[in-house]
């Protein structure tokens, strides 16, 4: 008998969501995790559970994202009960601001394309400056309008990760904090080894973020990925003033204001740079001028886990059918779908046709 039904490689938000989902279904599960020195998107995340704007030109991704956002309400409650941790999840709808007529025009056409492609399942509103002022009177004179979707929400990503760890362990899951060195397959059993552990399982799920690409060939997979840096600024805490998450600014349950949404290709550098921080702060103050009264107390860079086309990768090895790979840059938004849906696909032993478009075979050179 193997030690486990499933071994998940990677203890970030994606790996822990799948592992929690598997334990929830009664699968005996272990997670190998590199530990807190890992380059971990899960601890640098902005914390949006975000739908609007995702999956333009890819209806499957838009569907999957909406599906997860729907599941989140129930999932968030369950996770809180299971872990005893308040993960500060709320879904009040979110805004994306446009600061020029060109931005507003482009956003309007993107949202309309998304609504068309989702056959009415994506609900949103485009707001001009006048109607936006009625909802958010504090916007600055530069703001031309915004898109709003009631499907958007936010959560504390650090507490989410913590809650997943606690809930996973409370269901009987084992967390093994060591880097995986090798994975082998023999006689229908995978053997996963690190410096001091050698564990066996019937199935393996690779969810090691940017580390997946290196391990994938051991499972007959490729999982091509690259890092994309985002920088985040955090202000001193202030009394609640913003009831909605937005794509650039959100106030946490603790009162801090997070500012972010930059995209840079700088390899594995998790640092910050004054130019990007300036631009983020400037845009935030253009949106809500009174933010300039708050001091910045922290800033960091974190690396998104990007596939060549930006969409998630879900696949099953043809060489070793018990081996799966799962990676995406929206681990928080997709956490509910990973825990509730993806885990059940692993239990079934096969990915459904609805995830076919996310196969890494789309990157193979023909």
């Amino acid at each position: 008998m193997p030690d486990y039904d499933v071994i998940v490689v990677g203890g970030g938000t994606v790996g822990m969501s799948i592992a929690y989902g598997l334990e929830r279904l009664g699968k005996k599960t272990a997670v190998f995790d590199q530990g807190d020195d890992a380059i971990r998107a899960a601890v640098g995340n902005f914390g949006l559970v975000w739908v609007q704007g995702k999956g333009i030109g890819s209806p499957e991704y838009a569907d999957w994202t909406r599906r997860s956002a729907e599941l989140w309400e129930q999932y968030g409650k369950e996770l809180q009960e299971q872990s005893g941790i308040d993960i500060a999840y709320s879904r009040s709808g979110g805004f994306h601001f446009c600061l020029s007529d060109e931005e507003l025009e482009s956003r309007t056409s993107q949202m309309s394309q998304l609504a068309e492609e989702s056959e009415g399942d994506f609900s949103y509103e485009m707001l001009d400056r006048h109607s936006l002022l009625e909802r958010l009177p504090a916007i600055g004179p530069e703001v031309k309008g915004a898109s709003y979707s009631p499907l958007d929400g936010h959560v504390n990503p650090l507490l989410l990760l913590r809650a997943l760890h606690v809930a996973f362990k409370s269901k009987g899951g084992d967390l093994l904090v060591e880097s995986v060195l090798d994975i082998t397959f023999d006689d229908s059993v995978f053997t996963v080894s690190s410096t001091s552990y050698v564990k066996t399982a019937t199935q393996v799920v690779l969810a090691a973020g940017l580390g997946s690409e290196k391990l994938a060939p051991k499972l007959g997979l490729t999982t091509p990925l690259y890092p994309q840096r985002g920088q985040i600024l955090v202000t001193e805490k202030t009394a609640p003033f913003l009831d909605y998450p937005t794509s650039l600014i959100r106030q946490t349950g603790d009162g801090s204001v997070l500012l972010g949404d930059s995209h840079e290709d700088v390899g594995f550098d998790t640092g910050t740079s004054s130019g990007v921080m300036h631009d983020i702060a400037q845009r935030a103050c253009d949106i809500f001028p009174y933010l300039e009264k708050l001091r910045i107390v922290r800033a960091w860079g974190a690396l998104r886990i990007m596939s060549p086309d930006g969409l998630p990768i879900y696949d099953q090895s043809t060489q070793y059918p018990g081996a799966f790979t799962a990676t995406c840059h929206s681990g928080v938004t997709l956490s509910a779908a990973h825990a509730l849906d993806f885990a059940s696909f692993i239990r079934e032993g096969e990915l459904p046709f609805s995830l076919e478009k996310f196969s890494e075979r789309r990157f193979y050179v023909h």
Partner: protein
Amino acid sequence: MFTKVTSGEVQTITIQFEGETLVVRKGLNVAAALLEAGVKQFRETPVSGQARTPFCMMGVCFDCLLIIDGMHNQQSCMIEVAEGMKIERQLGMATIEFNASAEQGL
């Protein structure tokens, strides 16, 4: 409670504390100037509402936080008094207030 250490001629400036005009010595930090003027309570904590007064006077304890010229969370022991400065107690959480008429030009 406090003894002034001075030599030579003392210059003074005028500040406002909670709407009251105070004449204080030039060159002092805000916390020292207020203590010298007899102010005992500075902030109230956001968590329990307890009253606080400066403790460390060197920028680490954050018990001297005040609202100075409209800015919350100012460490008053690290800021020098200036002519006309308007100072208020910070009671509870820091806030940023939106003033519609001022900011939208209405």
